């Protein structure tokens, strides 16, 4: 008999459910319990780089907004360094949590535009923000990436975007740049299913 493997199996995922806010954003569930909720401040007070707002809406297979989604954000600083992996500005966490408006499904977060990050085999990745979505009806968190429309050249060389065989699907990961009242806003809508379905990753 061959030897048995003694590895453990990963705990299976379950949906976050409709009341995910109680645990991860209790203020939005309607009560205050913690001294500070985590995930509101992504970059801290000292972050260098261009201040930007990212906003969007998540829609389901019927085109309706998903109002009980919770999105987590993970990004590098303007120099392309992740917190915990190198030196970043004091207070820069690079991680955030955002939920949409209960009525409209619109969400937004404030951050800085990340710098390019070294990818595998020494290939530079275009600036991007990693996003992780959970909600009622989603059994395992969905991973995707947001890239920036004004980074055409870097996007064209990005090793991850280039893994997407269907050219037109790459566009689902590229946020459009707008200027509103002098501020830089990137619009990033996420379609869970159906026409123009956003590309999701198995990371």
């Amino acid at each position, binding site marked *: 008999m061959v030897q048995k493997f003694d*590895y453990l*199996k990963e705990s299976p995922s379950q949906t976050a459910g*409709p009341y995910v806010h109680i645990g991860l954003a209790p203020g939005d569930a309607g009560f205050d319990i913690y001294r500070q909720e985590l995930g509101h401040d992504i970059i801290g007070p000292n972050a260098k780089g261009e201040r930007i707002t990212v906003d969007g809406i998540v829609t389901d297979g019927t085109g309706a907004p998903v109002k009980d989604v919770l999105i987590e954000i993970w990004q590098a600083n303007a120099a392309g360094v992740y917190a915990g992996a190198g030196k970043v500005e004091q207070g820069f966490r690079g991680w955030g949590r955002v939920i949409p408006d209960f009525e409209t499904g619109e969400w937004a977060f404030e951050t800085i535009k990340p710098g390019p990050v070294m990818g595998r085999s020494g290939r530079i990745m275009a600036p991007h923000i990693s996003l*992780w979505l959970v909600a009622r009806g989603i*059994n395992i968190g969905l991973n995707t990436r947001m890239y920036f429309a004004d980074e055409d050249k870097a996007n064209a060389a990005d090793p991850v975007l280039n893994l997407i065989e269907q050219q037109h699907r790459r566009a689902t990961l590229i946020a459009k740049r707008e200027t509103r009242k002098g501020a830089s806003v990137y619009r990033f809508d996420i379609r869970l299913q159906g026409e123009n379905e956003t590309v999701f990753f198995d990371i």
Partner: protein
Amino acid sequence: PHYALLSLQNSASELTGPVFGQNDIDPLDNDLIRNYAKTGDPIGERIIVHGRVLDENARPVPNTLVEIWQANAGGRYRHRKDTYLAPIDPNFGGCGRTLTDEQGCYVFRTVKPGAYPWRNWVNNWRPAHIHFSVFGSAFAQRLITQMYFEGDPLIANCPIVRTIPDPRAIDQLVAALDLNATIPLDSIAYKFDIVLRGQRSTYFENRPEGN
């Protein structure tokens, strides 16, 4: 999604993740019996839920953030969208958080949540459960799951539980009654270990020598 997920070889974007420290949370945050108490203790079966966070190589995951949320003893959530007729408990919030210690251990004190009905099939009831959110040390390890209680007959009937096709994987989400960890005449205990994706250093990648 209708389309297949796109597989990704991990880069720094997936292999790094947020780090939390003791000054992000308060010592009382893991005690759901006290962290929202207004006039007294919440009503319900007093329990301790404890366990370890491990990776697939059975190594502990230290200093990682574990967050939980749950209904009260009657199955009612403190959430503006929950309209179930069972009442809110004025002394129970229903959320907690803690960091694992050097051995990957965590502990919460709470009341055992009740089952509750939901609009799926006409007569669907969720088994008693506690939602768990765990970070691990890489964004690729991020996990949200649910813990169930040993012996609950509703587990086998639940369509959310049955989104998991492998019965052994379901067993992995069922916490065992842990008489060793009970506090006599005070609280009963359940043990719930969580396994995150394995973590090892990179082998032979662009380098002639190994690890």
